[in-house]
């Protein structure tokens, strides 16, 4: 009489290979999720940077130095603070979309340059993506800046103007 033997249901090799397969699938999915997240972040940053750069360029284009003084030598200079030209520039003038927030400031003081439609405070600490563009700006001390004064001040320090930073921040 033959002894009845049970068939082998599983092997250790099979268990190990299943474990490795699950590990490989998990790693692949994790890699895909990480890559997709990084791509999304890169797209968001690219968009914010483009909008912030455009807004900063518009502000810089409006920050022309006194034409009569600088154009005498045949060129136009940018980067001079002119309250009359820069005050009142709104968020829509800076081509910042309505669903985005912005902040424009001269130096470290937000009060110096308020753009209607933009925020009057720094972005919340919880904001993850903020694009910031900075431009140097010459703020005349008293009289409008002339080319002669500017060239003299390059050679030696003077108090005819103060160099500040114009900052544009954009976030969503």
């Amino acid at each position: 009489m033959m002894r009845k033997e049970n068939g082998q249901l599983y092997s250790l090799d099979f268990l190990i290979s299943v474990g490795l397969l699950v590990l490989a699938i998990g790693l692949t999915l994790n890699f895909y999720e990480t890559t997709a997240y990084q791509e999304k972040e890169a797209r968001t940053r690219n968009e914010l940077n483009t909008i912030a750069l455009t807004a900063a360029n518009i502000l810089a284009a409006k920050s022309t130095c006194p034409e009569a003084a600088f154009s005498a030598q045949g060129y136009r200079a940018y980067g001079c603070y002119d309250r009359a030209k820069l005050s009142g520039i709104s968020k829509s003038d800076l081509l910042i979309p309505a669903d985005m927030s912005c902040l424009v400031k001269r130096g470290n003081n937000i009060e110096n340059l308020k753009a209607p439609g933009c925020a009057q405070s720094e972005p919340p600490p919880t904001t993850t993506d903020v694009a910031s563009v900075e431009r140097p700006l010459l703020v005349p001390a008293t009289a409008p800046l002339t080319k002669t004064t500017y060239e003299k001040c390059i050679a030696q320090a003077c108090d005819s103007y103060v160099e500040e930073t114009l900052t544009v921040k954009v976030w969503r």
Partner: protein
Amino acid sequence: MQKGQLSIDLLLAIIAAAILFAVLVNSYNQNFEAELRGQNLKNEAKAILLDVYATIGSAKDYNQSILYTTPKAKERSEFNETAQCTITIDKGQGSITVLIIGAYNDAQWNRYTGLNLGDIILRDPVNSDALMPDPTSVGCGTRFKVERSP
């Protein structure tokens, strides 16, 4: 049965599990594929919108006349067709909108609003630089001039 022999019951159980798994994966992939397609269309619309926006911004910044060709939507390889894509620039509303209709008639759009485009001029170079109407709707891949009014 002898040692090492697979039983027919186990084989049938494995086949049934494989079939069930294949059905689950297939249904998951179908929804996943639709979502992926929608997201790809949205990303494409956003990329085209950003390109148009950047060009208009450059014309406004530097007071230049720019002869600009808008990006085309990617071709849909399954049907060998180019997706329908429309760019609408509305100076009155201050908006730029990009709409893409994919090969499966799924549409995605992206829009920027609240922009001051009042000093932007659009001209048609094919029509002797004639002023384009407001709002202007053009297909992706169209060429036109963008400049800032003096």
